C-alpha cells in the first residue's frame, strides 16, 4: 500500500533518490522504488535538481488551515499538501503506512501506539530555533509556576524520546522530542444558553434528566470515555485514581452509567466529527454536549448563542504536535524542519490563538497579535474592540469576555488529558456495547 502511494506521488524523483541514499528498508521495496526512480529519472533528467519540495501533511481537517499552507508557501516556496483524515485514522496510518506522509500532526495520546512501532523519528531540538521557549505546560506540566492535573496521557509523560531512533519515552528531558507541540486546548461542555436559561457549572449536567433527549456525547471512544469519567466523578458516583488509565472495573462502571442514561433516552445523538457537533448545536437538536472550542466558535459565527462553559470540576485537555516519520531524509527532512521552525515563529501561532486554540510558543505569537487581541484571547480581559476570526467574522463584540477567562485560569484548570489506556482494547469493546445498547 505504501509502495503504491509513493509511486503515485509527484515527488517520486527526489524520493527515489532519497531511498537509494538511505539503502534501508525491505529489499523488495527498495527495488521497486529504485526501478521507479530510474524510470522517472530517464524520463525527466533535468527536473531532478529543481524539484520543489512538497510536504505531505497528515492530520485531522481541524488543524489543516488553507491560509497557513498559503502563507508558508509564500514565505518559503515549500508546498504543503494536506491529507485530512479522522483522529483515529491518523494513528492508523502512522502505524500501517508510515511512508504515506512527510509530516504528521497527531495528538500526544496517540503516541503510545505510534512510538513503539519505530515509525517516528525523534525531533532534534537543536534544530528547532524556539525549542526552549515551548510552554512549560508541555515540558514540565506547569502553568504559571503551578502544576496542572496530569491524569491521562499528559504531554510531559511522552514528549521526550531516549534518542533519535528510540522506541521508548524518556523520563527526563533529552535532546529529542517525539512531537513538537502545535495546538492545544482544554475542552469542556458546550451549551445553548438561550435554550437552557439557567447557569450550568458542573459536568454532571450532561446526564441531568432535565435535558433528556437534548444532550450529546463524543463518539470517539478514547475521548468520549474521558468526558464520561468527568461526569461520573461530578455526579459523585466514583472517584478515579486516574481517569486516563482505568481498570476494567472502572471502565465497566463508566459504561454502565452511560448505558443507563442512554436507555432512559438522555442522548439525542452521538457525534464523531467537528461539523456534526456544530450542526447538532446550531439546529437546536441538542442544548448541552461535549464540544470543542472552535466548534463553539463556529456555532457563534452563525449568530447563534453558544457557550464553551467552564465547569467547577475543570477541563479535559488535549494537545497535538508535529512528528516526523522515521524514513524522512534529505531535502524533505530539511523542509519539514523549516516548516516546524516557521510554525513556531509567531504568524501561525497568532492565527491559531485567534481561532480560540493556544499556540506552543506564546512569546512569538504575542509579537504577531494586536495588544487588544492578546488581552482578549490570552489575558481574559474584556474586548476593547470587536474581536474577529482570522477570516474576518466577528466573534465577540466590544466588552465581551472569553469563556473560561485567561490562559492561566483555563489551562491551569486542567483535570485530565486525553488518554490511551492500558485497557484500551477492552474499553473499545465496552464502548461498542454502549453504542449498541
Amino acid at each position, binding site marked *: 500500500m505504501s509502495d503504491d502511494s509513493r509511486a503515485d506521488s509527484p515527488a517520486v524523483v527526489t524520493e527515489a533518490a532519497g531511498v537509494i541514499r538511505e539503502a534501508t528498508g525491505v529489499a523488495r521495496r527498495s527495488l521497486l522504488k529504485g526501478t521507479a526512480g530510474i524510470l522517472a529519472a530517464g524520463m525527466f533528467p533535468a527536473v531532478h535538481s529543481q524539484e520543489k519540495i512538497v510536504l505531505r501533511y497528515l492530520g485531522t481537517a481541524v488543524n489543516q488551515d488553507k491560509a497557513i499552507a498559503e502563507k508558508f508557501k509564500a514565505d518559503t516556496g515549500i508546498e504543503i499538501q494536506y491529507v485530512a483524515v479522522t483522529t*483515529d485514522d491518523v494513528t492508523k496510518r502512522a502505524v*500501517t503506512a508510515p511512508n504515506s506522509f512527510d509530516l504528521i500532526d497527531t495528538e500526544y495520546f496517540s503516541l503510545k501506539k505510534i512510538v513503539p512501532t519505530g515509525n517516528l523519528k525523534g525531533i532534534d531540538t537543536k534544530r528547532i530555533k524556539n525549542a526552549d521557549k515551548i510552554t512549560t505546560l508541555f515540558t514540565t506540566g506547569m502553568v504559571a509556576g503551578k502544576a496542572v492535573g496530569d491524569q491521562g496521557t499528559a504531554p510531559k509523560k511522552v514528549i521526550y524520546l531516549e534518542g533519535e531512533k528510540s522506541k521508548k519515552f524518556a523520563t527526563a528531558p533529552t535532546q529529542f522530542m517525539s512531537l513538537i507541540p502545535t495546538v492545544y486546548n482544554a475542552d469542556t461542555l458546550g451549551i445553548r444558553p438561550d435554550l437552557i436559561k439557567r447557569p450550568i457549572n458542573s459536568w454532571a449536567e450532561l446526564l441531568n434528566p432535565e435535558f433528556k433527549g437534548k444532550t450529546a456525547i463524543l*463518539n470517539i471512544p478514547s475521548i468520549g470515555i474521558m468526558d464520561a469519567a468527568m461526569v461520573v466523578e461530578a455526579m459523585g458516583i466514583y472517584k478515579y485514581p486516574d481517569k486516563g488509565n482505568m481498570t476494567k472495573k472502572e471502565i465497566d462502571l463508566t459504561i454502565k452509567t452511560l448505558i443507563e442514561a442512554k436507555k432512559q433516552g438522555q442522548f439525542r*445523538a452521538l*457525534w464523531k466529527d467537528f461539523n456534526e457537533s456544530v*450542526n447538532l448545536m446550531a439546529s437546536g437538536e441538542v442544548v448541552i454536549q461535549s464540544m470543542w472550542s472552535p466548534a463553539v466558535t463556529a456555532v457563534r459565527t452563525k449568530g447563534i448563542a453558544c457557550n464553551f462553559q467552564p465547569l467547577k470540576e475543570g477541563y479535559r485537555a488535549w494537545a497535538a504536535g508535529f512528528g516526523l516519520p522515521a524514513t524522512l531524509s534529505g531535502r524533505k527532512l530539511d523542509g519539514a524542519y523549516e516548516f516546524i521552525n516557521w510554525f513556531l515563529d509567531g504568524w501561525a501561532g497568532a492565527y491559531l490563538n485567534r481561532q480560540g486554540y493556544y499556540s506552543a510558543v506564546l512569546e512569538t505569537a504575542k509579537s504577531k497579535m494586536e495588544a487588544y487581541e492578546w488581552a482578549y484571547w490570552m489575558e481574559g480581559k474584556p474586548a476593547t474592540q470587536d474581536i474577529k476570526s482570522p477570516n474576518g467574522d466577528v466573534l465577540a463584540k466590544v466588552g465581551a469576555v472569553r469563556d473560561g477567562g485567561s490562559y492561566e485560569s483555563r489551562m491551569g484548570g486542567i483535570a485530565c488529558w486525553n488518554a490511551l489506556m492500558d485497557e*484500551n482494547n477492552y474499553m473499545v469493546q465496552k464502548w461498542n456495547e454502549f453504542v*449498541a*445498547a
Partner: protein
Amino acid sequence: MSTTTTPSLPAAAVPGRSIAAWWQAAPFTLVFALFFLVPLALIVMVSFWDFNEYELLPGFTFKNYVSIFAGCGDASEGLCVTLKTYYSTLKFSFLVWLITLVIGFTVAYFLAFHVRSPGMQTLLFVLCTIPFWTSNVIRMISWVPLLGRNGLVNQTLVGMNLIETPIEWLLFSDFSVVLAFVHLYTMFMIVPIFNSMMRIDRSLIEAASDSGASGWQTLWNVIVPLSRTGIIIGSIFVITIVMGDFVTIGVMGGQQIASIGKIIQVQTSYLQFPLAAANAVILLAVVLMIIWGLTRLVDIRKEL
C-alpha cells in the same frame, strides 16, 4: 464460482471444446481469484491472528471469535452485544426488504403493465434513476434538516396546529434509518423486477383473463411467480447492502444505533484488525446463509 465451473460440464460431454472454454473462463477466473478469493483468504487468516495496540501478531488463536461472543452464553444479562447488534441489523434488513419489495414491485408493475408505449416506459424508467445522479451520502444527509426537531416537517405540522410540540422520533431513530434506506435502495428492487416482468409473455395474461381469473388472481398466480427471479435478485441486493451498511445507520441514527458494519469500522480504526476480520468472517457467513436460503427458492441460473 458458477462461471468457472460451468464450462467443464459441456466440455466433458463434447471433447475438443475444453481448451477454448477454459481460456474463455480464464480472465474472469483470474480477476475473481485476485480481487476476491485472495483478499478473502487473507481476512480469514488474519481473523485467527493475535494483536496488541500497534502490531498484528501472526499465529493461530480463536481468541477473537471467543471475545466476539463473550457473554452470549449468559442469558441473565440479556442479549450480548454481538447478538443484539445482529438482531438490530437483521431487523433493519427485514424492514427495508419488505418495504422496498412492496414499493419496488408496485412501481415495476406499473411501468411494465400499465404504461403501454415503450417510449413512455423508457422515459419513466429514466425518471426513476434521477435521484441516483447525486451521491448516496448527500441524498441521505438532505433528510436531516427536513426531519429535525426544528425541521421543515415539524415546523409545518406545528404551523398547521396539528401538533403542539415537535415530534422527536422523526430523526435519529429507527424510523429515519429505514426511511433513508428505502429512499436509497428501492431502485435496486425496481430494476430486476421490471426486467423479469418485461420477459413475461403477454399472452399468458390474456389466457388467464380468458380463463376467468380476476386481476388479483392473475397477479398472484401468474405475474408474481414469473417475476420471482427479479424479486430474488432485488432482495439479495437490498439485504446484502443493508447488512453491511454503517454510514446510513450512523448518520440517520445519530450514531446511537448499532450495526455490525459500524462495529467493524470502529475496530479497524483502533487497529484491532484481527477482531474486525473475525467479525467480517461471521458477517459473511450470515449473509451467505441468507443468500443460500433465497437461491433455494429459485434457480437463478436456469431462469436468466
